[in-house]
Structures are given as C-alpha cells and as structure tokens.
C-alpha cells in the first residue's frame, strides 16, 4: 500500500443546534493517510478548522473500536460508510480514493433529532429499552446460578447473537421508513430465547413495540437494508421472531 496522502472534498452537514436550520458545507482536506480511521480524518479536519478560527464539526464517538455504538455517520449514502460489518470508527480511509468527494451526514430520522452538526439524540432507543428490555431477577441473595438452567446451545447462540446489537441506530438510518424493527427485535430476541426471559415475554414485546411506535419510528417493509448495513450483522430472523412474539402476545392479551 502506498503512503501517499489523499486530497479529499468533504461535504458535511452543519447545524448549530437542534432549533437551527442546517445545511451542507464543503471543506477541502489534504494529505490524508489511507491508514487513518474515518474519525481520525475528521479529527484532522477539526484541527484544521480550529487553527483557521472556525467551529469544529461535532460528531459522536467514544470507544473507537466498534463496541460502544456511539459513532453514527451516514457516509456517501450509507450508514457507517461503504464497508460492511463495521462501525464508522472502524472504517478506514483506504476505502476511499484520492480526489473523492465524501458526503457526511447525521443519521436521519424524526425519532433521532439532530443535536448539533452530526450528533443525533438516540435516547428513543433508551426509552424503548426501559419499557421492557430487561428481566426481573430476584437479587435477595437466593439468586439461582445461571448454569443451573439448561438452555439448548442453538438458543444460547441466537440469544448471544441478538445481544451483540450495540444500539448504534444504523438500522434506523438506513431503512427507507426509518424503522427501528431490527434494533427492537434484537432486544426482544435476546430475552425471548432464554428461560429467564420467558416470564415477562408477552408484556415485554407489547410494551417495547408500543414505545417504538410512540417514538415515531416508521414501519418495517422487509427491504432487508438494515441487516446489510448493521455493523454487528443482526439477522432479519430477529424481526420474524418479534413478529411471532407480538402476534402470540396480542392474541393472548
């Protein structure tokens, strides 16, 4: 690989605060190494903006290793950019070419209002989680050892796969309807598959779907875009499972 720096044109959404009208602004950036991560490239841009006396671009980030789910950029028309199975912080500049124009936008959804520039408020996900994404466990000192409960390996694996969802919101950002079905279904599935989660299964799915609708997310039309763009590869199987859980609960209620 060559170490020759790339010259790029960046078109970035700038918005002063939640109340202001935002717009796309154009920036030139030079000598970007292909070994940099995408967020490091934005760090370089921000240093450049600060040295020029301009306001740096606000963007969400935390662990920068694909675990926390904070980074949330829509890059060149795709959630987390053109690579697959990665978050924005894991995206490298080698995915781009010298002279490219890169569009950088916040995750767009009515339920994810822009806070500033590329930062969006994803607390809608927290409220959905609070409405049912938990198991009530007695912690009085008589807690049963988890290993005492026999769980089929296949179910344990599926529950674990669902639990790898980091709640970044790429599914919502990429869905043409801004639907949160993949996220909610992963959170429903990780409990629905395990014996500990079965006790509250009906209330959980009803409450989480109700909260999802209250937050203003759109409906799932099964395009499958969410599964493709999900950095953790959360499967559409989870949406089907949630639909089954919901139907069962709705009939029983």
């Amino acid at each position, binding site marked *: 690989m060559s170490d020759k720096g790339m010259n790029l044109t960046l078109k970035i959404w700038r918005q002063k605060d939640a109340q202001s009208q935002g717009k796309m602004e154009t920036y030139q950036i030079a000598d970007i190494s292909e070994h940099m991560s995408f967020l490091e490239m934005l760090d370089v841009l921000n240093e450049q903006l600060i040295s020029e006396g301009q306001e740096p671009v606000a963007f969400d980030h935390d662990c920068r290793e694909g675990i926390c789910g904070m980074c949330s950029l829509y890059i060149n028309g795709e959630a987390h950019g053109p690579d697959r199975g990665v978050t924005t912080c894991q995206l490298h500049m080698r995915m781009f070419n010298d002279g490219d124009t890169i569009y950088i936008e916040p995750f767009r959804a009515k339920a994810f209002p822009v806070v500033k520039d590329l930062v969006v408020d994803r607390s809608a996900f927290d409220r959905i989680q609070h409405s049912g994404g938990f198991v009530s466990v007695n912690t009085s000192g008589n807690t049963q050892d988890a290993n005492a409960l026999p769980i089929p390996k296949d179910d344990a694996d599926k529950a674990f796969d669902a639990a790898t969802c980091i709640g970044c919101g790429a599914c919502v950002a990429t869905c043409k309807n*801004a639907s949160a079905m993949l996220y909610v279904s992963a959170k429903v599935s990780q409990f629905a598959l395990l014996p500990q989660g079965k006790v509250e299964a009906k209330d959980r799915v009803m409450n989480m779907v109700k909260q999802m609708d209250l937050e203003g997310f759109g409906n799932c039309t*099964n395009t499958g875009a969410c599964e493709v763009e999900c950095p953790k590869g959360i499967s559409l199987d989870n949406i*089907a499972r949630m639909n089954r859980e919901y139907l069962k609960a709705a009939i029983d209620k």
Partner: protein
Amino acid sequence: MSVVSEDTFNSTSHFMGTNAVVQFVLQPILAFGVIFHLSMGIYLDTQNNKARSVKYAMNKPGTNSSWMSRNMKITGIMILLFLGLHFYDFWIPELNTKYIVGDMSGLNEHGGMRYFEELQHKFADPIWVILYVLSFVFLALHLLHGFQSAFQSVGFRHTKYTPIIQKLGNIYAIVVPLGFMFIAIFHYVSQL
C-alpha cells in the same frame, strides 16, 4: 383456458359470472381483501413518510436492498390504475348487463355465448394489449418482493424453509403474470 378452447372458456366464464357463491361470497371477500390491503398500505406509508422529515443529501439504497422492495408503492399504484381501468372496462359493464339490464343469459345478439367474442374484441386493440402486458410486469415486480415479505411479516422465517418460500415466490411472481401476458399477446397475434 381461452387459448385452449373457446367453448370451455365460455362455459367457465358463464359459471363464474352467474354462480352465487362466486358472485356473492368469493367476490366480496376478494374485494374486502383488496380494500384492506390498500387501506393498510396508505396508512403505513403515511406513517413512514412522517418518520423521516429531512432527506439525505446523498443516499445509495441500491447497495443494500432491491428495487422491488423499495418501490412497492409505485408498483402498487400501477396495479391499482390497471384495476381502475379493468373496473371501468369490464366489471362495471358486466354488473350493468347482469344486474341492471337483467340479462343473465351470457348470450350475444346472435344467440351465441358472448365471453370469448368479447375477449377477442378486447385484445384486438394493440393499445389495450400493451397496457395489459405492462400492468402484469408491475404485478410481477410487486409480487417478487410481496410474496416472501408476507411470510416475514407474520413471523414465518426458517433456515430450511425460507429459501424454498423465496424460490417458490419468485417462480409464482414470474409464471402467473407471464401467463396473463401470454393470453393477451396470443389473442392479439391470433387475429392478425
């Protein structure tokens, strides 16, 4: 049936058009299904449009989903337009003949069965043939996503059976509309 035997087509059409179960049980169920499907589609689409008020400056949906899955509204509207034309051109005149004029005989003015003759007359017009074929192209596109999507929506998804459903859905979505297109083209060509 019309491409195989004129008589069988006539007798089947007469049966379908005059049988009480077909007319007053199956037809209303079908109509209710269409109206429910359409109403739900409009309701959900209205919600979906509200869910993202600011659009992306750059968006590449083609990288993660099929054209058919993203454009069910367009293909659905085209099918609805065809349905409107079909009602205007066939269903309403049929209702008029049978239930307003009161002619349940299925006969034309010469005393023969009228159904095959009407079909031939319809497909003698190339404009109608093109409209008919185009409508079924849209139906095929609608079904290519819709068939397997319906199973997912009711939660039926299985490692072993879903690939079979998807293949069957693709075959159904292509073979059935192709059959209808063939009828129109066959009758047009047979009259050249």
